[in-house]
């Protein structure tokens, strides 16, 4: 099965934009394992580069997480708000009423949404059930980098490898797909 095809309505999953990393060459960053954000509300911009496209596909929105609820809200170029709770997944378009989305093929979207929320929270141990997580062996000056490789073959074909960068918070997520396509997601700084 082409794993790419398993993801439906993943476009409704906005990612919080975080400001450019606060880290500078002169400031030592805390370990990514020290990152522990239970709730957050971050703006994101994303660029998707694909062969055959005249220009990258650019979108932006907000990623909000608190308790067991994750809200992905893509604002441009489309307004699609997807809410994920343990009870299921629902979607609202252009501010309209929420409608439940089936749990079948959107299961992977839900899983990815939860995974991205876990990355933002620095929950690396929980991600180890889905990804091979490579944390920096020692902290140098500047940003840290965490690499994630899906353990599941279908996810591997869908996502390729993921690189998360940050300092005080996650600043960027880069996804490099096996077919050469890649995505760059940049987050605004967390509100203080």
């Amino acid at each position, binding site marked *: *099965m*082409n794993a*790419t*095809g*398993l*993801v*439906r*309505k*993943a*476009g*409704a*999953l*906005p*990612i919080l934009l975080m400001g450019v990393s606060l880290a500078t060459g002169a400031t030592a960053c805390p370990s990514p394992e020290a990152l522990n954000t239970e709730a957050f509300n971050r703006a*994101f911009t*994303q660029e*998707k580069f*694909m*062969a*055959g*496209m*005249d*220009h990258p*596909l*650019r*979108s932006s929105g907000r990623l909000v997480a608190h308790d067991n609820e994750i809200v992905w809200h*893509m604002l441009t*170029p*489309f307004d*699609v708000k997807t809410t994920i709770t343990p009870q299921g997944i629902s979607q609202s378009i252009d501010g309209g009423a929420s409608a439940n989305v*089936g*749990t*079948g*093929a*959107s*299961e*992977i*979207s839900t*899983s*990815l949404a939860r995974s*991205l929320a876990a990355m933002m929270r620095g929950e690396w141990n929980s991600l*180890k*059930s*889905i990804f091979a997580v490579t944390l920096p062996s020692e902290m140098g000056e500047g940003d840290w980098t965490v690499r994630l490789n899906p*353990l*599941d073959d*279908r*996810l591997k074909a869908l*996502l390729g490898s993921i690189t998360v960068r940050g300092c005080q918070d996650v600043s960027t997520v880069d*996804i490099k*797909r096996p*077919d*050469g*396509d890649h*995505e760059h*997601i940049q987050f605004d700084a967390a509100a203080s």
Partner: protein
Amino acid sequence: MTKTKLATAVLVLIFLLSAAYVATHIASDVDTNILSLLPGDRHNPVLSDAMQKASEDASNRVAFAIEGGTFDERHKAAERLSSALLESGLFRSSSDDGKTLWQWLFVHRTQMLCPADREKLRSEQGTVVARDAMVQWYAPMGGGSAALLKTDPLLLTNRLLGCLMPSNIHLLTHPDAEIISGIITAPVYRLDVQDRIATVVAKWTKDTAAQSLTLSRAGAIFHAAYGATHARSEMSVIGSITTFAVLLFYWMMFRSFRAPLIAVSMVVFSLTIGLAAALIIFGSIHAMALVFGAALIGMVVDYTTYYLVTGLADPDRTFAARRAQIVTPLTLGMVTSVGAFAALLFFPVPAFRQIAILGSVGLATAWAATLLLTPLVEGGAMRVGPGARWTKDVAGQFLARHPSKRLSVMVIVASIVVMLLGAWQGHTLDNVKKFQAPSTELVKEEARIRALTGFAPSSTFFLVRGETRDSATAHEEHLLQALHANGDESAVTWAASRFDPSLKQRQSDTILIRNALLIPQLKGMLASLGGGNPASYEPAEVSAKKADTMPPDFVNGLRGRSGNQYWSIVPVSHPIADMPDSPFVVYVEPAERYSELLGGYRRLATWGLVGAVALTGLMLLGYYRRLSALRILLPTMVALIVTPAITALAGLPYSFFSAMGLFLVAGAGVDYAIFQWENPGKAGSWTRVGIILAAAMTCISVGLLGLSSVLPVRSFGSTVALGVFLSLILSPFVRGWSEDAVSGEGQ
């Protein structure tokens, strides 16, 4: 060479050939499917074939879940198990189905629509579909890729997959478990297939013993293996105890181990030829037929016993004289027993037909071997043992008596009372679900896999039929529409027409997709994206791979053809509130259908017994040419009436399998009566010893089947043991009754 020597040589040659055939086929040709014990319904071949296919389709599926340990440990253990299963050559992973399904949907993406999308396009909402695709293209971690941009920019394949896949199926690996699922590619009810899969699982369990991993299994093959293990264990116990009983009884009768050796040799000789005949005729044999075959040991031994006992009466007589003494009753008894076994051929149950051949050929061979081979290997008459003398003096005396009129009346009254009580207290059982209790461990493991994967197999289904494949598919589409209108659509997990629609539906969807989606939406959407192939949905592009693409196996697994009738099954996962009314659709609950059939055949078997007894009566009249010969039937008839009543009072319901047991009672019971009839008075004293020994053997070997965990076997064993015992103690009634009881030997 005399005729006798020639016949003996032929018999030995047949045995050698049979032994070679059995040795090379017994391992692979044993069927353990309990459904094989159930009657087939050839009155409705479409329904029969559909039920068979639904059963096969469900029974070939297997799933394993590995939990515990670390992810790496689980992942490596799963790879090891998966590789071992694939290397066995008996397993195909379901991930192959996923690839086939994707390819199938991809090449038919411009010809198929989900019901909801069909409604959207009919109401000119093509923009909604195009917008959904745009959202996916822009989404972080979305479903678009460069390859799909060239071939399917509207992401129609993703859309089809998303709406056609059942909502309860989990596509992603559970984070705390590794799931392996697939199909067993060989018949799961064959013992060798079960053994090979069990070996793979056992080796995996041993290799991973050091890790804290747990394995859950789901699939009919594991239940079949559980049942087969029980059957083998029961066969082993029954065979061992019977062998011990044979040795003990014979030694007590003849004070020699030569006699039991001869008897066991005759058993091996006769059953080997009977088994070979069943294997050659049917191609395989059911495990339960083998269990019933174990019961035949007692009956086969009877014939040898009758001959050997003639040596106790007068050791100085020649072989020919001894043989002459038993040839008439033995032949008559063999013919009536074979007739009773042969009656099983009229029942549409393969396992019972196998028993018919195994029993008939086995008994006929035992008869021939007793008359031809036993004198050759006996090596001189036996000595009278302590058991033989006691049996002759005590038990034999009882059988030799003329029952008094008073006793006769008492027996008749008691029989009527017991029969009425049995009819009042007892009940019948046709429910197949109560035949064998499943393994609690396997039930628990299946529940765990259901929780992890969301998949729950369904046994009920709609059967849809049509004159052509396309008309059957169209009828199925109408059924789904009716269920959708009634709000029952969620009950249907899989339907072949959803993945491979009718020609009319396909043509309609093709036009709708082109006019309401491709023409108005594609160009603008590609312009917005800034790339993509405008010709991606042109017929030439779409049909390029079509010729090489076959429907996924699971779609073919839902369809079939019986004669000129095409049909499909639509599995249903929960009860339907409003049943659609269509002459082409029928709702099928296999367990109920099998129970109905079994009830019908129980009644038929009971009437068949009446026919068998009547036929035996005609044979006796034909041979003896006097009306009083019908008294031979009296003990057996009383036993046939009283036995099910007593078993009912003991709490064992009357089933189809009880009726089958009564057929054997008829065969063996008439044997005892014939020997009693043929050997009255003092001259028959040693014959009666033979009858008692023979009946005891049958009661022990078959009676032990009454301890089986499988209801059909338990019913059969209890019925035969009790029926044979009653036939024996009632056998003096062949002499009629006198005013006062008198010793038969005193005549």
